[in-house]
């Protein structure tokens, strides 16, 4: 018998050690998210999963579940904040959906539709982010990076390779690769790596498989992300893995 907390009026059971996000997804309740991935320890940087708990706002992916919490997620105020955060991510990078191989499979784009982001909201920063096409099989298009660190975590924790990392600070923070040349071709990344599969946007792409599924027939073209996230979610989170790489986590 487990304890429960309230999420938008529903009673959500949880196991000790679970965060609000983990318990909610396991119980079939969707909370929008980008940097959270069920297979990795949450680190709470994108803030899309911000919820209101007993009157305070906090990221639900890192908030330890506690009996009796009153969590509000699907309310105008939270969705408004999420809309602005998505606008910020679009304005921060260079996102041209119509020509992007990830269009239709992109979580940022899908959340944009789902949260009804109809305007840019901010002036775009148009950063200069040259792409890295050095690797024979893999393309890196940094223009689309939202700094979720999933590839950093996957490469370190699952692949044991540390192919990716972060450098810089503030708005100049950026993804780097583990090579003196700074080029992906000089790393030990492989197509079968977990790091190849986790990018929620279109940064890490396999070469020569472009547009094998036509735009319009892709994952989030079929059903909105809120309806699909739960299909992927109820995998048990690997809470045992420790991560001393990713930021903000102890």
């Amino acid at each position: 018998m487990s304890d429960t907390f309230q999420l938008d009026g529903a009673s959500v059971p949880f196991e000790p050690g679970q965060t609000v996000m983990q318990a909610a997804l396991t119980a079939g309740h969707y909370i929008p998210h980008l940097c959270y991935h069920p297979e990795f320890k949450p680190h709470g940087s994108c803030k899309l999963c911000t919820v209101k708990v007993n009157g305070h706002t906090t990221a639900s992916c890192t908030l330890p579940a506690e009996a009796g919490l009153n969590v509000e997620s699907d309310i105008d105020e939270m969705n408004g904040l999420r809309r602005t955060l998505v606008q910020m991510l679009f304005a921060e990078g260079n996102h041209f959906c119509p020509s992007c191989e990830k269009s239709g499979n992109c979580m940022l784009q899908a959340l944009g539709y789902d949260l009804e982001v109809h305007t840019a909201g901010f002036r775009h920063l148009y950063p200069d982010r040259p792409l890295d096409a050095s690797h024979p099989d893999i393309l890196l298009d940094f223009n689309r990076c939202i700094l979720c660190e999933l590839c950093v975590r996957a490469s370190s924790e699952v692949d044991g390779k540390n192919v990716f990392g972060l450098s810089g600070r503030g708005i100049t923070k950026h993804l780097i690769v583990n090579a003196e040349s700074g080029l992906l071709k000089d790393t030990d990344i492989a197509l079968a790596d977990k790091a190849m599969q986790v990018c929620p946007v279109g940064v890490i792409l396999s070469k020569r498989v472009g547009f094998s599924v036509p735009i319009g027939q892709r994952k989030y073209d079929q059903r909105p992300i809120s309806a699909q996230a739960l299909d992927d979610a109820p995998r048990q989170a690997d809470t045992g893995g420790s991560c001393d790489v990713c930021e903000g986590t102890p």
Partner: protein
Amino acid sequence: MAADGDRQPVDLDSILDRHARDPNALLQILRETQECCGYISAAAIGHLSATLDIPRVRIEGVAGFYSFLHLQPHGEYRVLFSDNITDRMLGNQALMEKMCQQLWLQPGKVSEDGLVSINTTSCTGMCDQGPAMLVNGRAITRLTHQRVQEIGSLIRNRTPLTDWPADFFDVDDNIRRSGPLLDNTCAPGDILRTAVALGGKSIVETVKNSGLRGRGGAGFPTGQKWEACRNASGAARHVVCNADEGEPGTFKDRVLLTRHADLVFEGMTLCALAVGAQQGFLYLRGEYRYLLEPLQAVLQRRRDNNLLGKNILAQPGFDFDIAIHLGAGAYICGEESALIESLEGKRGVPRSRPPFPVTHGYKQQPTAVDNVETFCSAALVMQMGAENFRAIGTAKSSGSKLISVSGDCPRPGIYEYPFGVLVRQVLQDCGAVNTRAVQISGPSGVCVAESEFDRKLCFEDLPTAGAFMVFDDSRDLFEVARNFVHFFAHESCGFCTPCRVGTAMLKQTMDKIAAGHGTQHDLREVENLDHVLQTTSHCGLGRSACNPVLHTLKHFRPAYDSRLKSLDFEPGFDLDGALDRARQMTGRDDAGAHLKTEET
């Protein structure tokens, strides 16, 4: 001094050995590498990566986080002008421009001969004797046109820093008003002897009874923190002194570390006894690099006198020592969990809390992190007793507080007051006249106007970490706010979306208003940004980043309105501004190189 990539690994081994090849010391190792070679070369990173068994991507990530570390050659002389608003008010921009002209280079760029680079940096903590700069990490104060010209010549002649006139590096304490803390003349070890007689548990009780609250700004009860750390389970406990005094306008910790280092270390040792710690760290901001050797000497003297080390004061089992870690230019490391990350040799990114450092701090062990002044005050509590300490100040803010006064006043410096002093009193004592506003506790604090000068500096009313920047009626409060907004954007760690992007957007909006393109729409956007930053940011930096704008808007709206276009909306794209690069490339700035602008 020459940056020679081939030479680096040789020098590196002695640095690595000095730090026992400990991966946790990565930041210290990088900082010393930079100090000896001028920058951190790709070859050096390869060597460090192999020796410390840290992936190079992570070493680059750490080096890329801290402002004072460079992965590319950055000049034999690296000049950084302190760019706090107080430095600006003293004319730092004109000085920097002049120096750039003298040395033929652009800010942020390295001269073509690789000799020198000139740029700005966040407040260096010399606001009472600015304008200030750092040259290769060494603080220089009281810049004048003449001094800047001399510095330019010394650089051009490649004169080693050690041969520069010694008075360039003078840093004054400027103590204007003292109290129980600054007047303390206790001999090293006296307070500790009292504490040893009491024992750990009674120390905690005494500090709790004194009502002492953290002096770093948040005001958490110190005794409660120590008790939680004492009671937390862990293999080892740690004491950390936060001397990363980065809040612009604050410089009181610098003075305490200069004049009362023994009291600081006495307080830390006291805390070690109270919580049961054996290892302590002083996290010293990189800007105060010049204090490292004097502080090391004090630590050595205390070791020699059995006030640090094994069996302190002949008490069997009372073992404690203190190591000094230097920061490398990152304001965020003043946040305690970011500071701990930095101590562990990582990027200074605040951790998700809970758990808090008292249970999961340095190396996930219980850690008591307190401000420099807090440790001094705790020592004072032991010396004078909880009752006497509580008799000073107000009901909820016991003891005295050091205020760092700077800006428009004839007597800037350090003032010690009992908590509860009126803003008006401080203004009177420092001789300020025609004061328009005071920024209390730095950019993340509050801006008060004349109507609020009868408010009190204490946790009940105006909490403060100590900064007190005075602006008279000649000052433009919009420019003050804009300077602070630039500061937050520069210092955001970039971990969370709202702060990383939001501070950049806020900076862009303030610059747009400054350029005369702002509209009412932009002010509404600031309010929206504020809401998002307040509610979703990961830590206090993001949550307070809009404060400077909101506070000045509240009191000094005309400073904004006078800059706004009457239009409700003005696009961010500036057609004439788009020609800027072309103007730069052609070296033209005449009327023909500008689009004709029609005033509406």
